[in-house]
């Protein structure tokens, strides 16, 4: 997750210990800190969902799966996550609000010292339920809206889904629950990006999270609706400009990008052109600490049947099941050669990713997309949109703006 607003509008050397790191810190210290960091865990609590989105990575359906984790099994999982030092558990689905014990599980997570957050389609959010969840300790709700009404309802497979999601957002905000947008950018909705931010900002939303399409679950079936590299570059540039415009008007919205760490290289290049070399250097340093693509390291997933995945999007492969072995033991087991290689992927990356100058802050971006397109989890990222010059490819000149 990369905070565009923080990098372009909010970052200064006094924050985040960057000045300290520059003066006193060492790379070794940072690496040690990195290794000790526990993952954010996404828990797909149920397969059941009242919508049928075309890009759903979890292949959700109207009915729950036959062997979903029970309330007691869920609590045992949450205990293990808390003992292991996991900072955040993201309740997801399916539609997590379709689980009748959601509030009980959120309260349990909060009491155990985890920070519970929610990913929802928003259509079942009423003010009463939002208040109940907030009082149980829920810290944040991310609501999926994928475009203006026509695009959103087409993607979500139900007319009226947009209006229902916006009503859900309004209800959550009224209940005092911090609420933000989740938006997956595809060909269907790239042109709606600014209009959705404007509309939801008027509603009271100030956090906007944009996802690149993951090629997992039904997302892999709609990969042909993914953006071209040129269009992706334009969409990210639009988000950068929009963020800066809002901040220039005193509206401190938070904008984030998820799912393609080529964004890290692009933002550095963008800052170099628009904000100057010193700012670009500060951003690059921050992104080094951020650590690049988090699969198998800083994010993990447990699905509704207890299978542990490298990210929430990578549901086709499981490292093991929490019914057989605690999550912490599965996650620590680097005798698994794929898990181990992902954690030292720099020595395995191939193609354009092998010698990219931004490898340290990108780390090959989505290994799932590489697997899906090239049949190899260490092949080059098929959705990298940096130019050869920006990547520092052999024969390339110094970075040259392609979109000025």
């Amino acid at each position, binding site marked *: 997750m990369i905070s565009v607003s923080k990098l372009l509008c909010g970052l200064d050397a006094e924050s985040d210990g960057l000045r300290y790191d520059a003066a006193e810190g060492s790379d070794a210290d940072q690496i040690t800190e990195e290794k000790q960091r526990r993952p954010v865990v996404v828990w*797909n609590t149920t*397969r059941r969902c009242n919508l049928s989105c075309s890009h759903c*990575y*979890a*292949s959700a359906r109207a009915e729950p*799966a036959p062997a979903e984790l029970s309330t007691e099994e869920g609590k045992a999982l949450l205990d293990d996550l808390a003992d292991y030092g996991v900072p955040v558990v993201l309740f997801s689905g399916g539609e997590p609000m379709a689980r009748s014990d959601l509030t009980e599980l959120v309260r349990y997570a909060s009491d155990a010292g985890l920070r519970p957050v929610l990913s929802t389609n928003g259509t079942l959010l009423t003010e009463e339920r939002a208040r109940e969840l907030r009082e149980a300790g829920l810290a944040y709700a991310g609501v999926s809206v994928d475009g203006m009404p026509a695009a959103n309802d087409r993607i979500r497979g139900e007319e009226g889904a947009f209006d229902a999601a916006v009503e859900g957002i309004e209800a959550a905000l009224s209940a005092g629950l911090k609420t933000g947008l989740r938006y997956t950018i595809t060909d269907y909705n790239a042109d709606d990006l600014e209009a959705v931010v404007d509309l939801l900002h008027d509603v009271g939303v100030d956090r906007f999270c944009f996802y690149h399409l993951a090629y997992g*679950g039904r997302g892999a079936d709609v990969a042909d609706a993914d953006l071209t590299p040129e269009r992706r570059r334009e969409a990210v540039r639009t988000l950068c400009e929009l963020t800066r415009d809002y901040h220039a008007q005193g509206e401190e919205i938070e904008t984030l990008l998820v799912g393609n760490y080529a964004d890290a290289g692009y933002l550095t290049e963008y800052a170099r052109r628009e904000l100057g070399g010193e700012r670009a250097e500060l951003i690059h340093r921050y992104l080094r600490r951020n650590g690049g693509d988090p699969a198998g390291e800083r994010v993990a997933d447990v*699905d*509704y*049947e207890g*299978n542990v*995945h490298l990210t929430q999007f990578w*549901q*086709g*492969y*499981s*490292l*093991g099941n929490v*019914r*057989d072995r605690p999550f912490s033991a599965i996650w620590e087991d680097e*005798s*698994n*050669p*794929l898990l181990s*290689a992902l954690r030292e992927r720099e020595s*395995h990356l191939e193609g354009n990713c092998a010698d990219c100058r931004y490898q340290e802050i990108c780390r090959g971006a989505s290994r799932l997309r590489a*697997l899906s397109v090239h*049949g*190899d*989890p*260490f092949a080059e990222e098929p959705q990298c949109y940096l130019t050869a010059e920006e990547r520092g490819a052999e024969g390339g000149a110094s970075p040259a703006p392609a979109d000025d």
Partner: protein
Amino acid sequence: MANENPDWEVFVRESPEEAMRHVGSVSARTGEEARERATALFGRFVADVWLCPADAVERERGVTAP
């Protein structure tokens, strides 16, 4: 797992001298597809990959209490 396909348990070893060890599971429609998927994930690291349908594994948990 979270998709429409059955799961296949995956076992690998780096050389014929070693015992096979469990490295998780893949989901796939057929054994052939499961083998392809497991090989894409582990082929660069191991000598042998074995698979079996996950629902063919009889699990007896906690036979000896710790």
